[in-house]
């Protein structure tokens, strides 16, 4: 399911959620349009699939995923039994799947957990393999409005709490059987099933169904004025009083607010739903309320005439995942006008897209009332400049166009997520129009791929006399920073080795992860946090890897997003080996794993 959904998100023209909630990406598989003739061999694997009560699971698909064309899928019979005959010798991941159940993988401690893999040789007969599945847990509930009436077609989402790099607590979409974005039915009911035992947050997502754009509410007093005092519940009764114009103004535009279980708009304050394996939890009721929407008006102050600008309005929410940024890439004129905003904290920033590099930003808090007089003052944007050094014996790149220097954002979220590209002239470079924020200096030299030419990699970044290589640099508005020295080297630093299992066999079904020991380097898109897959002989290599001290670990399963999860990385540290690599050094580290072939 997870693989499937990643494709869906990749193609959805109007992705329903922000990009960071995209489900794990399947490891890039080679395109095969050649006939899938399964290779045949002489090995046999048979066994049984059972649930958490040791009862057989019928009609589970048992997938044997091995090298090349050795893949096989067997369906269990009424006794839960499966047989895969004529298997070629290979190392297999064996996985039992059935809708509504947590996956059972060979060698896994529990259902839903990654397994270990099974190596079979020609002529082997491996019998009595037991795959453990677990009936998935269920969350069922209802969405109702203030008066207890069901909300039809509301999008409900299940999340898990995660900690992002940089220490921020965030929530992450849970993708399971059925739809990831179920809508309540005509009774307002939603149901998630096939869930792993875990702690969940349930919320109605901020995307509103059709026909429920902002509305105005009519007060009882106004309705009395219009319909007459005799207006009664008996709706066919015709008022005999002359209708009068209603007194008082219209309500502000209202809309249904995002809400989480426990009647809160803050997902972290939500009542969490802790599910035991196979538990069916019902009665999760979400109460939606109408909240006022307000508009924001103001002006952008700058040179006359105002240059073309890009404008970003970011809604700062309790967690990054729910933060929404409205981006206008090109606009002219001084007027700021955002209608129908939800109450909350906002950052509004402007940056020129033509002419002199100017930037400005303001923050404001919106309650239920319209806000006028917001001002964004354009000031000269921050600039960083410096020189480029090529340290090494190889020929320097003759064409400055092949040198890419930029300021890369260190968080995946919020404002200015696109890197700011610098201009290189000879040995000098400049990056202008830099908005306030935290960045790291990134640099690369595009290789011409001609044999014998050196491959240059970034080796250090000095801000004045401070080493900021791969570290965040805080930049304020209008600031001029000390000159920066960016050094490239043609002697790449490397780390490689072999994954060896307890029985001496090579471990190839793993991900090897390199992680800086110093948490300051744990930023988004860091070139120091890397994963590679070993080849069939268990060999892995990280090249180039910036010099430094690393923790190296091997895991059987790695999902997209794991390397951006602080919790995941900290868990990894405990199960890792530390190694220090000096600039230009090539080190070898063999990892011996406990997992066996049987």
């Amino acid at each position, binding site marked *: 399911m997870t693989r499937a959904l990643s494709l869906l998100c990749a193609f959805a023209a109007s992705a329903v959620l922000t990009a960071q909630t995209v489900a794990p990406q399947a490891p890039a598989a080679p*395109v095969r*349009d050649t006939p899938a003739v399964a290779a045949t061999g002489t090995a046999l694997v048979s066994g049984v699939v059972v649930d958490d009560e040791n009862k057989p699971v019928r009609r589970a698909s048992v997938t044997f995923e091995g090298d090349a064309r050795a893949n096989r*899928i067997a369906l269990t019979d009424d006794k839960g039994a499966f047989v895969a005959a004529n298997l070629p010798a290979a190392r297999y991941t064996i996985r039992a799947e059935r809708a509504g159940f947590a996956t059972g993988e060979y060698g896994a401690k529990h259902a839903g957990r990654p397994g270990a893999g099974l190596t079979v040789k020609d002529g082997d007969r491996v019998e009595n393999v037991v795959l453990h599945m677990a009936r998935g847990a269920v969350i069922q509930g209802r969405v109702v409005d203030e008066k207890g009436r069901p909300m039809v*077609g509301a999008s409900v989402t299940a999340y898990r709490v995660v900690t992002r790099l940089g220490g921020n607590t965030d929530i992450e979409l849970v993708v399971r059987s059925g739809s990831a974005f179920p809508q309540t*039915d005509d009774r307002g009911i939603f*149901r998630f099933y096939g869930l792993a035992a875990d702690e969940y947050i349930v919320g109605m997502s901020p995307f509103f169904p059709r026909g429920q754009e902002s509305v105005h509410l009519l007060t009882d007093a106004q309705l009395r004025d219009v319909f007459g005092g005799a207006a009664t519940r008996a709706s066919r009764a015709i008022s005999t009083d002359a*209708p009068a114009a209603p007194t008082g103004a219209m309500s502000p535009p209202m809309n249904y607010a995002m809400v989480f279980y426990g009647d809160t708009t803050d997902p972290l304050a939500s009542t969490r739903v802790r599910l035991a394996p196979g538990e069916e939890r019902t009665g999760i009721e979400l109460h939606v309320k109408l909240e006022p929407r307000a508009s924001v008006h103001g002006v952008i102050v700058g040179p006359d005439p105002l240059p073309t600008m890009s404008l970003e309005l970011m809604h700062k929410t309790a967690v990054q995942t729910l933060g929404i940024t409205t981006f206008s890439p090109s606009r002219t004129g001084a007027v700021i006008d955002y209608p129908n905003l939800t109450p909350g904290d906002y950052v509004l920033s402007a940056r020129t897209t033509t002419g002199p590099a100017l930037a400005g930003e303001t923050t404001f808090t919106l309650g239920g009332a319209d806000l006028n007089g917001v001002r964004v003052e354009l000031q000269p944007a921050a600039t960083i400049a410096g020189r480029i050094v090529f340290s090494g014996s190889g020929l320097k790149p003759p064409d400055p166009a092949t040198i890419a220097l930029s300021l890369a954002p260190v968080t995946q979220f919020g404002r200015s997520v696109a890197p700011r590209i610098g201009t290189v002239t000879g040995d000098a470079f400049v990056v202008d129009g830099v908005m306030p924020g935290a960045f790291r200096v990134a640099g690369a030299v595009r290789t011409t791929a001609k044999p014998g030419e050196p491959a240059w990699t970034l080796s250090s970044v000095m801000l004045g006399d401070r080493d900021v290589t791969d570290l965040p640099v805080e930049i304020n508005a209008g600031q001029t920073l000390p000159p920066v020295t960016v050094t490239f080297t043609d002697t790449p630093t490397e780390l490689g080795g072999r994954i060896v299992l307890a029985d001496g066999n090579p471990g190839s079904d793993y991900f090897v992860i390199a992680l800086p020991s110093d948490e300051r380097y744990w930023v988004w898109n860091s070139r120091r946090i890397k994963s590679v897959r070993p080849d069939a002989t268990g060999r892995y290599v990280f090249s180039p890897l910036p010099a430094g001290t690393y923790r190296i670990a091997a895991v059987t399963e790695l999902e997209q997003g794991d390397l951006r999860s602080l919790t995941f990385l900290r868990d990894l540290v405990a199960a890792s080996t530390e190694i220090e690599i000096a600039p230009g050094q090539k080190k070898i580290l063999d990892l011996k794993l406990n997992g066996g072939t049987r």
Partner: protein
Amino acid sequence: MGLLFLCALLLQGAQTPPASPPPPAADALIFGRVLDPAGAPVAAAVVSLQSARGSNLSTTRVLTDDDGRYFFDRLEPGLYNVLATKMGWVDSSVGKRRVDGAGYPVSIAEHDRKGNTNITMWKLGALSGTIVDELGEPLVDIEVRAVRRTLVSGTRQMVFAGSARTDDRGVYRISGVRPGEYTVFVPATVMSGAMTFPPGGAPQEWLRTMTGEGTAPMSFDFDAGVLGRNGTSFVRSVLGVASTPPSDAPWLAVPPSFAGVVGAASFTIASGQERIGIDMMLRLTTTYPVSGTLTMPEGSAANLVLHLMSASLESFPLFDVATAATDSAGRFTFYGVPPGDYVIRVVRTPLAPGGLLGIASSGANAYVMANDRERPGGASALPTEPLWHVTQRVAVSNAPVKDLQLTLKPGPRVSGRIEYAGASVRPDGKAWNPFAITLDHANGYVSRNPPRVVPGADGESFASASVLPGDYYVRVNPPAGWYLKSVVWQGHNIIDAPLALGTNDVTDIVVTLSDRPARIEGDVYGADDQPALSSTVLVFPVDQDLWTEYGRVSPRMDAARVNHEGKFSTKTLVDGSYYMIAVADETAFDWQDPATLAKLAKQSRQVTVRDGETSHENLKLEKIK
């Protein structure tokens, strides 16, 4: 009065009067209730007030209170549309008297206090049940579809009306069902093939053939294993995924299952009704593989999707009994085919140069979407390559079918010129809506992938992409100020008889437009000689042959709802003899049924519509006898 008023407003918009009179007071009030058909209030419905004047469209929305009440005040005089929407209910408006009917705009004068402007809304219903296997265990995450008995082009058809997937208990619930007659079934489509999505992209050949013209509406289940695993050859049925069995032996599978039989046991759902307990037990039966080779005259026939469907549903595809994808040699095997008569169809949708297909999601379902269709400008989006297609009948008795040889053929194209009869300024290509000309199936079938037709840049020609052979009408929705007069091919009127497209291109169609509309206008009065506001004027051709097989929409039929003053105006009609009758709108449900038309004809007035003439007819409200 209303019309005069509208003209005055338009004039005001067009030019500033030299001595502008004081603007009308914005002090009018309109109020009413939103009620269900039984007269009970509908609370928390969104009522929107739209200024019915073209360009300056402003909308105000209010929420009804517990008593269904709403009002709008401080209104300028004018014509307004008052609409009501609510999730789980059919959209409605003032004047709407039946679920498929139309409403009318409300006219508001200065100082008006317009009360009792009520809106009737119909609640959507639901179909629900449990699907189990032969041991009574729930079948989880399988698709259940609903089809509605619908009048299409004068005949009753079962038309796709919604789908849902079963949950962990095997329970499905198809919500959002309009009042009508339904059947529910499990398509139990067996999918087979071997496919791996390339990283970062969908296999274009697979997408092009997955939902081709003339194939079943397809809601993707991404987990279906259609993608295979690293090229593993697989077969997926409602029972699970497995490696492909031999293609020359019987195979146990669950065939498509209906609650009752198509066309017989169906459920009539009233507004807001829920029908629960539509349970089904799916049983294993012996089925047979159907295999063969697909050949493409140009290029490779790899990764193409073949659809196998019941022969009786060939012209209105509802579901695939089996779906298969070819390997690199064009070989395919369908599994799970019970004995019966079938049609295998492959349609490879042509793409405009540079066009790309992607997958868009909508709720739980995902659809194939071509980005070239969305490109504005239209003309550049016409594919130059042919549509490749093959339709092959196959009968399955009690044995596997092997060695079928299917060869894709290019589909024909249609083109012609557009002539303008009249002195008005001729529209160029830009004035034409890029989707204004369509090729409609004569039987009214509408596919997800309708053939593309684009008007030329000069506005004097049109051309279609290569299409699936079949009977088609060329339907035209001319630019403002122009009206359809005739569509002729080699001297044949092809407004009333479809064009049977086979293998040859058709190049010399002549579409003639006129700048003078032909239509019928008038007033409808009730028995009390008062304007009959509840009425609808039905217009249909005298020639009974034109009561069926007229495509999606008949150019000779119209149901013109009277306005707030009892006046009606039909759509523009092509010349000929027509029947017309005014009936209460709520009695006009399914009036296009030929049996109803035959009854109506006896009570109707016969009128002749001539090119470019607007005729006036006043009618009395009639009861359908």
